[in-house]
């Protein structure tokens, strides 16, 4: 009796302990990759940020010198300000375009897969290629928009879209929406399709009107999907670089220097790798904070769907 009792406890314990180890084993490759390609580089960046680290020559320990300099750096703060402005505008613009598109392509109607494909197509173009394409479209002499606007009588003479901040900014926002909205649309579409048909029907039977169904049924049920789309969009916008670098080289009179652009300039134009590393760490902290805040605001952690 006693031996069998021990045996049962052992056999009960073993299957409980094994899955733990096995689970670890399963995620080990992923952990290894994350450690090698994310954790170690971040640690190395932290290490670099504590040095005066020129691109050529020997690094010198400087403690928190780079971080202190960061807080007095006007240009860094204006880059942060511009990035925030860009992120807000572009995220609103993307959602304003992507949400109606998602609702439009969700319903079964003729040619719906053709619509989906066409809207999604720009997403598969690289951001750099898309920027180059739009540089040409916006070129005042040989492009499309300038001559077109003149022909339509919208402008007297040729308007150089990329020469003034407002028009250049609008051009870039339009390019990004054209390029990204399809992706956000697909994410939102999966959310829409995950809403059970019965709920909508039940709401309809209860007499809920179209707007009420959208406000009290669709939106709450799409919270997780929206959180994903929002975080992807906000993170992407905060890390924006290519479009400003390629389309306006930092914009008329440096008005379009995003944070990543500024880090790039500090690291590879002024050769202050250490300072660039410190700015990158600051940016990482900002991104983590914003993502946590978004998840909290959208209550994604809650058990209730």
């Amino acid at each position, binding site marked *: 009796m006693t031996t069998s009792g021990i045996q049962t406890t052992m056999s009960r314990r073993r299957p409980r302990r094994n899955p733990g180890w096995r689970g670890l084993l399963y995620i080990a490759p992923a952990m290894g990759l994350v450690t090698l390609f994310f954790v170690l580089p971040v640690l190395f960046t932290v290490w670099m940020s504590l040095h005066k680290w020129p691109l050529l*020559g020997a690094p010198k320990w400087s403690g928190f010198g780079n971080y202190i300099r960061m807080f007095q750096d006007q240009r860094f703060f204006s880059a942060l300000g511009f990035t925030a402005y860009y992120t807000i505008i572009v995220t609103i613009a993307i959602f304003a375009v992507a949400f109606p598109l998602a609702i439009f392509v969700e319903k079964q109607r003729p040619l719906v897969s053709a619509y989906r494909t066409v809207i999604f197509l720009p997403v598969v173009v690289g951001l750099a290629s898309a920027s180059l394409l739009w540089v040409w479209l916006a070129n005042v002499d040989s492009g499309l928009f300038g001559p077109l606007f003149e022909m339509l009588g919208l402008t007297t003479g040729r308007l150089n879209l990329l020469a003034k901040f407002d028009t250049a900014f609008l051009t870039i926002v339009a390019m990004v929406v054209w390029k990204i909205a399809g992706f956000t649309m697909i994410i939102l579409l999966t959310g829409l399709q995950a809403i059970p048909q019965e709920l909508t029907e039940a709401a309809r039977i209860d007499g809920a009107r179209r707007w009420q169904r959208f406000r009290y049924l669709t939106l709450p049920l799409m919270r997780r999907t929206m959180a994903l789309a929002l975080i992807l969009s906000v993170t992407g916008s905060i890390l924006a670089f290519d479009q400003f670098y390629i389309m306006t080289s930092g914009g008329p009179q440096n008005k379009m220097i995003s944070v990543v652009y500024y880090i790039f300039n500090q690291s590879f134009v*002024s050769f202050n790798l250490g300072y660039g590393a410190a700015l990158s760490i600051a940016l990482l902290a900002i991104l983590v904070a914003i993502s946590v805040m978004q998840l909290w605001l959208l209550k994604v952690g809650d058990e209730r769907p």
Partner: protein
Amino acid sequence: MLRKLLAATTLISVGMISTASAETITMWVRSGIGDSFKEVVKAYNSGHENKVEMTEVPFSELVQKYATAIAGGQAPDALSLDLIYTPAFAAADQLEDLTDWAKALPYFNSLSPSHVKLGTYEKKIYGLPLSVETSIFAWNKDLYKKAGLDPEKAPKTWDEITANAEKIRALGGDTYGFYFSGGGCGGCMIFTFTPLTWGAGADILSADGKTATLDTPEMRKAVDIYRNLVAKDTVPAGSASDNGVNFLSFTNGKIGQQSLGAFAIGALVTQHPEINFGVTLIPGVDGKPSSFAGGDNFVITKGTPKLSAVKEFLEFTYSLEGQKIMAKYGSLPTRGDIADQVLEGLDPRLKVGIEAIAVAKTPYTLQFNDLINSSNGPWATFINAAIYGDDVDGAFSNAQSEMQSIIDAAQ
């Protein structure tokens, strides 16, 4: 880790290459210096066992690309480096010391002195002249004729240039009187625009390079001249956002006048024979001409295993044959002793480029990239703000203080 890996791969590939008898030198050259270098490489490759593999790098990115490549152990064996950067790279101890070899060259003393001076750091020679160019003023004779101007009469003052520009613009359509890359191309503008103030005796930096002296009456006059040209619609709208990509707009035949470089003379003569143009010196704001003496130094990456092949190539470019090819495509002769022989039979307009050397200047500062060439630097920003913006005073004071703070931070 990455660095070691890269170094190991480089070592292996180097080992593989050196077993072959003929060597291939990798070399970088910046874009925008015309075809002279490409052509000399072509000629060398067809007549020698060793080969040169040339990579063209956008001029605004060459410095950071090269610096990154050195850090990653993947630098080319040699490169054509804008001469103003030679001191900075020599000071960082990244270049091969060429002193003994250079001084043994029989024509060492006749090599372009300003190049050798900038190529010398702490009495050792790290860079030797590869290409020489000066900035000059060009006008399109056909458009002059059409506008009722005397096509053979070179303009001597900016009043004349402005009046001519207006007359050419009056031809209408997309014919314009003047062009410059005003959208943040610091390199283009230091080359073509500062001669306006140099001619009048002002400069944007003090002689020791430690004080920014941007806000001078001469610079204000120069800015007014360009603002006026823009206000009178003699400049295409694309200029305001041209970061240097369209610097050679003159070659499209619809620009009446533009300040260019000697390289452009070569490009025009060889690739655009249909354009009938004249060249003269760039007038200063008070009429006295000046020019920017620029060009590239030939530098060798420290520790390259193909030193002798690289030297053989450089000696070829210094030969009469090499010099002749270079000159044909717009690079002025680097060897003074055979300059006349080299230019014999070539386009006479290149002689204006040589004349310009006598009145030309080259700024000397270790912060050239940060101050002038970077498209987000104070100079590039100033040009756009002062010429195209609404607040000229603000543009002057911002640029002046930012330049000074960059200089101070580097001391």
